[in-house]
């Protein structure tokens, strides 16, 4: 008797679990899966939370890094990827079908320092490159003193702190240095992990920030969002127009005021914009232009493009409260036209 009861209960529970999971997936309609860059993760989770509530849809974004996002999209395990470094032509070719980039917000890399006295330090591109090449080693080097009139710089060794893990932040920073210094381009190059000539490595933005706080005289690079949240002392950097620009939400958005290519795949480091902060960059979501692949239904594809167009439009209101820089109007218009060009079996999904 006991055994029978046991059997009945277990089978009931199993049946309920099976039915329950079915019910869940039916009630939620579709779930949109995404993966990629960690930098915009706080913003995306806010956006997806609000959007998901409004339209009763579940969006699951895994912050596994830009490289992982590209890989997962190419393997078609996710519906969209997120990346801080746009895909190269070879990478798109390797993915097998055209992939479009949709800019969602802007980020910047700032130079945080730990020079006693909470000084406001100005740096020129050449000085930044020379410090990270190990050619300038003291804070009172004549080249630094020359651009900081009135600032009493100490006779202190500069301890360079860089990222030890592969990172989109490192990519943007080295992309900038490669543009402003021929020597950097030739000796070190541009990439997510580099062969650093000098300095200490630390894992992640928190690692770099922690080490900079620990070591007097240190200079490290971190994401703007991270530096703002932790109230770190950051340097003003001279842009191409010769203005020393403090990294702020506005100056980063201003950096995007350049001539944009139609596919938005552009590096805006060393921007020509007059008030733009020179070490800025877009972060993108990437999707296949033709959505009828790997058994995706028209409904799946429609949900995805609706979400994308919401993110570049209404979703932008969440950028500034979270200390991200919104994409400028002109770029949003361009992104809109890219989303409008996403098709299902050849016909655009969004009717104009």
């Amino acid at each position: 008797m006991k055994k029978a009861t046991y059997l009945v209960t277990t089978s009931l529970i199993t049946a309920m679990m099976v039915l329950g999971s079915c019910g869940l997936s039916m009630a939620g309609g579709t779930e949109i899966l995404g993966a990629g860059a960690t930098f915009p993760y706080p913003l995306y989770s806010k956006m997806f939370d609000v959007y998901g509530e409004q339209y009763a849809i579940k969006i699951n974004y895994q912050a596994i890094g830009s490289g992982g996002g590209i890989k997962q999209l190419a393997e078609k395990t996710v519906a969209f990827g997120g990346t801080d470094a746009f895909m190269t032509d070879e990478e798109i070719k390797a993915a097998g079908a055209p992939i479009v980039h949709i800019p969602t917000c802007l980020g910047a890399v700032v130079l945080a320092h730990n020079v006693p006295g909470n000084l406001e330090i100005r740096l020129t591109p050449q000085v930044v490159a020379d410090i990270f090449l190990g050619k300038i080693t003291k804070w009172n080097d004549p080249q630094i003193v020359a651009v900081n009139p009135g600032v009493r710089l100490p006779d202190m060794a500069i301890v360079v702190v860089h990222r030890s893990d592969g990172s989109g932040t490192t990519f943007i920073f080295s992309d900038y240095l490669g543009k402003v210094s021929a020597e950097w381009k030739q000796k070190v190059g541009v990439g997510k992990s580099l062969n650093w000539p000098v300095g200490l490595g630390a894992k992640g933005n928190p690692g770099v920030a922690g080490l900079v706080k620990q070591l007097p005289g240190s200079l490290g690079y971190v994401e703007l969002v991270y530096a703002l949240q932790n109230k770190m002392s950051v340097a003003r950097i001279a842009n191409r127009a010769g203005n020393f620009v403090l990294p702020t939400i506005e100056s980063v958005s201003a950096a995007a005021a350049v001539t944009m290519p139609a596919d938005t795949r552009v590096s805006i480091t060393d921007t020509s914009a007059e008030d733009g902060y020179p070490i800025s960059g877009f972060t993108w979501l990437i999707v296949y232009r033709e959505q009828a692949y790997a058994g995706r239904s028209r409904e799946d594809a429609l949900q995805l493009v609706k979400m994308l167009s919401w993110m570049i439009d209404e979703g932008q209101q969440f950028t500034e409260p979270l200390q991200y820089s919104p994409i400028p109007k002109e770029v949003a218009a361009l992104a809109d036209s890219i989303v409008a060009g996403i098709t299902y079996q050849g016909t655009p999904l969004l009717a104009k």
Partner: protein
Amino acid sequence: MTTNAAERGVRGAHRAEDSFKWGLYVAAILVVVLLVAMLLTLLTSSIPSLRHLGARFIYGTTWDPVASEFGALPFLVGTLATSFLALLISIPFSLAISIFLGEYFREGPLSSFLKSAIDLLAGIPSVIYGFWGLFVLVPLVRALEMKLGVAPYGVGVLTASLVLTIMIIPYSASLSREVIQMVPRDLKEAGLSLGATRFEVIRKVILPYARSGIFAGALLALGRAIGETMAVTMVIGNSNLLPKSIFSPANTMASVIANEFAEASESIQVASLIEVALLLFVVTTIINLIGRQIIKRVSFE
């Protein structure tokens, strides 16, 4: 009827014993299969790097993902330097702890408190050791470096070794304590009856008798130090250049894999990182084999 039941009982016991035996076989073989499978996976996945770099991978000192040049010597040196330095520093402490708990204070509240404190030390997640190292040890080492007049980074081989020392002490200490406790009472009493002092008994009877066990504890601790990733990466400075002194920043094999694997997009970089894992596997195996030989040689007849 009763004999039948008894027979059935015996047969049942046999069957149970058989299935138990088979269960053990399967479990044991599975472990070996897993080990071999791991080695094979590492080997096949690192073929592109083995082909591209050859022996340069072992003696090369440049790790440049941009130029696809991967030399793992700095990481090999970093791993060996930090783990052996940690082992060296830990030996006096773990030996003292094990003699204290295994010989002088075998029972009582103080001893059980100390024992659980040491066990707790072994259970703390390594990221906590890393944080502690970053916020407590780094300033201390920095102050020392300023006194000595070397570059005051605070992070580097020495700091990593010190964190590792604290992490591995529980392993060697508890194993050594067990073997010291197992030294036969009559041997110790014989020593004492000949007029030896307690210290002489420890030096001439207990330590020689227990030395293979103590050595095995040290080997276990070394294995833990070689594989440690998180705590080391937080305080070693992660510089891919060959360390010049114990104050230089460096990097270890485990740490470079953890740092670069997630964002490695070039297939040659992925293969090289897997080859680092293969190298770590081989190094661990070699150290274990040498260790076993030494244990065999020093064990008490």
